[in-house]
């Protein structure tokens, strides 16, 4: 069976308002896809729904991971199967050190106890990739972090937990160019046959550093166009209006 994350005719509402209106998207394992689109298209909602955010109601459709329907699973069950969402707005959890949190999360991810040395090696490697000092581990999870630090911390978790399917929700927003490069390096270091990413972004900028295999464009709760990396460049140049017309005309 082909390994992939598959979204099939997904309809999702929030406060009685339909936000996703029949999303279809396939992310084969081993590929990096970009998800672009104007504000309010439903990109972030899609990311959260795939991760299992209970604030959204799936009205219809399926989310399949390697052929298994995960639509009704709890967020933590999805995570343990290898799904990861890098949040657009990472949440602060005061009093919980990153080290402590990462170790608990890794234990869940691997389904076994993690010896200290193994944990330490994984974290060391990730910190090196992200050019981050070890002292970050004793800080409390996202508490008092700058926007950039929070984003970097999401990628730290990504590198330590090594998910199979990662959704990066506007990880580039609020990052200066240096931080952007570091974050991109982190994601690129994960690339390989056992890792997929869906990179949600407004801007072409990030895609200069994380070059996607496929680009999807969402509008008004649907994926309206899929193409190669050149599609992102075209959107950068021409904006979304031409696409809106194309969709309306079709």
């Amino acid at each position, binding site marked *: 069976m082909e390994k992939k994350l598959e979204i099939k005719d997904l309809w999702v509402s929030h406060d009685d308002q339909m936000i996703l209106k029949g999303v279809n998207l396939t992310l084969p394992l081993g590929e990096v896809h970009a998800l672009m689109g104007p504000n309010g298209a439903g990109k972030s909602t899609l990311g959260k729904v795939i*991760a*299992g*955010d*209970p*604030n959204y109601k799936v009205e219809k459709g399926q989310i399949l991971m390697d052929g298994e329907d995960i639509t009704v699973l*709890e*967020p*933590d069950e*999805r*995570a*343990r199967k290898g*799904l*990861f*969402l890098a*949040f657009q707005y*990472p*949440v*602060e*959890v*005061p*009093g*919980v050190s990153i080290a402590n*949190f990462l170790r*608990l*999360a890794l234990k*869940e*991810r691997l389904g076994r106890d993690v010896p200290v040395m193994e944990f330490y090696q994984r974290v060391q490697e990730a910190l090196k990739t992200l050019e981050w000092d070890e002292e970050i581990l004793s800080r*409390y*999870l996202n508490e008092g972090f700058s926007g950039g630090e929070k984003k970097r911390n999401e990628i730290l*978790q990504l590198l330590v*937990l090594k998910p199979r399917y990662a959704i990066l929700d506007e990880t580039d927003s609020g990052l200066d160019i240096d931080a952007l490069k570091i974050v991109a390096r982190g994601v690129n270091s994960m690339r390989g046959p056992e890792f997929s990413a869906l990179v949600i972004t407004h801007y072409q900028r990030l895609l200069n550093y994380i070059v996607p295999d496929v680009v999807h464009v969402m509008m008004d709760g649907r994926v309206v166009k899929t193409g190669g990396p050149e599609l992102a460049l075209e959107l950068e140049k021409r904006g979304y209006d031409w696409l809106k017309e194309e969709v309306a005309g079709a």
Partner: protein
Amino acid sequence: MPEDLKHIADDYRWGFKDEIEPEVALKGLTPETVKKISEMKGEPAWMTEFRLKALEIFYQLPMPKWGPDLSELEKKFDEFYYYVKPPSKGPVESWDEVPEEIKKTYERLGIPEAERKVLAGVGAQYDSEVVYHNIKEELEKKGVIFVSIEEGLKKHEELFKKYFAKIVPPSDNKFAALNSAVWSGGSFVYVPPGVEVEVPLQAYFRVNTAGFGQFERTLIIVDEGAKVHYIEGCTAPLYTTEALHTGVIEIYVHKNAHSRYTTIQNWPTNMYNLVTQRAIVEEHGYHMWLDGNLGSKVTMKYPSSILKGRGARSEVLSIAFAKTGQHLDTGAKLIHLAEDTSGQIVSKSISKGEGRSSYRGLVKVNPKADRARANVECDALLIDAESKTDTYPYMEIENETAQIGHEATVSRLADDQIFYLQTRGLPEDEAAALIVRGFIEPVSKELPLEFAVELNRLIELEMEGSVG
């Protein structure tokens, strides 16, 4: 509600009951009971008189009406056992001499193991009497006294008499009077000038008899420049009848001395836990109260520090966890009597289900206490929509140079935090427990590692099945 009770019993790991028949059990609160206790302990006449007088005071003082509902308790004073003597020959210094069944209980609680690993001395009390007491030899040689309160009275009467009931007199409150009348068990600690006890001394109180009142009394004297950390833990099995725990803790911290009193109490949910804890701190002395309260039906506990000498300092760190059917009314008092005294109160409370936790605290600055500083921080975390919390911060500031800070926060267990942690693979319950552990971290980080681990485990148990 047998199902409910079963659920509580399952949650409460220490809910096991030991099959031990007491040698003596005295029920009812009368002068006869008081005399009998004193007689059985072979006390000097002054103590018998002290007890009887305290009983008179108890009768006279009204029940405190300003806090949690104690009306049920008021009707029951005659139904409790005031003295229960386990079949033991009194405090021994080897676990091998402790009766087998009782020893097993402490092994289940992990006490002998902890003693070998991390403690400088251990006292173990079973119902009314101390059954085991031991202290590392090198400390004994330096003159450190760590014995049961009864032995303290017997062997060190002069020292005992100088401090006993001087910090918390029977007239202080109704429950201090009750304790003064029927006290039994507890520790007597004396650390001579300049002696630093680097590893903690620990006492462990175990209640086993149904309908029992535990009235331990602890007196700690830390002489000039000395240092000590005393830890106390308490548990009891779960019975359908209500139980009462009314302790009195008195601590005298002399000039330049440093002391810490740590207690983690985890009582069954039908226990009235009404404790008076007070320290007097002399010039440049320091005292920390670290107080963890879990379980009980009602807890009323306000560890107090009287900052008597210039530059005396105190910190009161506390955690309270109230679940459905529980009202934990806890807090702290700082009384600044001298110049340059400083104090810090950090109170963390968690209310779950229909549980209610209240912070009640007093900061008092005497006219003479120039440049006194005090800071109060109380944070409440509500787990469910029905959970309750209230804050009663009292301030009596009679000196214009005092600097007083007060900060209170109330937060709810946030769905976005839970979701965030869940997306990292943590099940909902575990995510909630982690958030709670983070919430109390400013306090729990002050605990010795073993106790921090134990507290975290307790929190996890308390949080099971809490969300979703």
